[in-house]
């Protein structure tokens, strides 16, 4: 396991001490990149936070492995996010990636691809009925089916289970039926 995996664990376990270390160690460098490319301190923090969310999601995936330095990974994602925000994705990069900070392009691009896929899931979720959206969201928040039944006014837990089953099935079908998912 890579020695920097401790930073991944810090995100997964909400480790205050290490999160503070990451903030002190990495944010100033990200901020320098953003500020030197017409961004502000607040925007740098937004990008930093967004990148950490992307890494957190990636780390939650089955079989995730950190193969580069954590900062390399973080910087690559921040850079991509900032370019995207500047609308420079398809043109020549404004920010030149320093070799030592941006050597693992694959991992970064993979994370950005994940984001596109998640965007698709979110879009498909919005195509479901309001009840379905609500019940799936509640389940994702680990709300008990019994409580969902109460909240949604269903007869009992079984009805909530059946409803969740049908909604999730519909969501999976919508995702699988989209060309962007298949490609």
């Amino acid at each position, binding site marked *: 396991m890579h020695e920097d995996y401790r930073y991944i664990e*810090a*995100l997964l376990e*909400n480790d*205050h001490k290490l*999160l*503070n270390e990451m*903030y002190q160690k990495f944010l100033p460098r990200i901020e320098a990149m953003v500020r030197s490319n017409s961004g502000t301190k*607040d*925007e740098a*923090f*937004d990008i930093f*936070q967004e990148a*950490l*969310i992307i890494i*957190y*999601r990636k780390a*939650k*995936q*089955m079989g995730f492995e950190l193969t580069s330095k954590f900062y390399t990974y973080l910087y690559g994602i921040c850079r991509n996010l900032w370019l995207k925000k500047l*609308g420079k994705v398809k043109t020549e990069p404004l920010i030149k990636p320093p070799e030592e900070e941006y050597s693992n392009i694959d991992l970064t691009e993979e994370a950005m691809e*994940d984001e596109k*896929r*998640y965007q698709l*899931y*979110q*879009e498909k*979720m*919005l195509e479901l009925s*309001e009840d379905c*959206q*609500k019940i*799936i*969201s509640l389940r*994702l*928040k*680990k709300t008990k089916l019994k409580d969902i039944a109460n909240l949604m006014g269903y007869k009992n837990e079984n009805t909530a*289970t059946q409803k969740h*089953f049908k909604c*999730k*099935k519909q*969501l*999976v079908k919508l*995702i*699988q039926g989209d060309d962007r998912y298949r490609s």
Partner: protein
Amino acid sequence: MESEFQKYELIEQYLSGTLKGEALNDFNAMLSNDPKFQKEIALHKDIEIGLMEQEDIPFIKTLNEIYENESAMSSTEKTKEIYIGESIEHPQKSEPGKPKTIVRYLKIVAAVAAILFAGIFINQFFKQSLSPIALSEKWIGEPLEQSSLRNQTTRNERLNNAYKEMESKNYEGAIKMLLDIYENKMDLPGSGLALGYAYIQNSQHKEASEIFNQLLKKTNLKNSDQINWYLAHSYLRNKQFSQSIAVLENMLSNPSVTPKKKEEAKVLMEAIRKQFL
């Protein structure tokens, strides 16, 4: 259908970590022998991750707290720098035998203390004596909020034009443009929030709260805190005080809301209670 349902239940248990013991072993065996099933599980897991909302990610709250604390500390440091910089900038001006430097120090200290006390007093004065409506106008009418709205804009020209209309305080014009974007289901980030904001500024508070409530029904919102904040203001200005308080209470109990915003929500809530309830 039944087997499909049983499979769903198994997947749910596996993903939630409630599948244990022999059942888990059987499941893992099934998983290792069936690539199609592996793919199915991976998709379910991936959907779960992809639909996760920002407010459900525990480290976000911690990170926001660090940021707030650091920002507060760095502004204190800046005050110190000004004071120290001033005292060492003109050392040649102090004549030997005359303690002018000390006098200068004392003057600066007195000035800084006076500014600090005045700041605290004014802050407390505003907190205690401003009416809820005045607080609302102070907090959501200021340019900072408009710029934070602008930060969410995409490079969409129509949306940017609507922002320009808002900047020149032509809220009616902005509403027309934003309605066109919003009603045509162009899911541009920030368009709904901007529309609600323009409604508030144009004193169409009922329309504003309707838009914010519509937005809150969406899932995976990245800016639900900001929407709730505006919703509380639109209820307040529409004289729906209990609803406004309910939204503010909800913000206070939400870990993803920043401490600064919580403080504002608390002050506004107390002002509403004091004046109207």
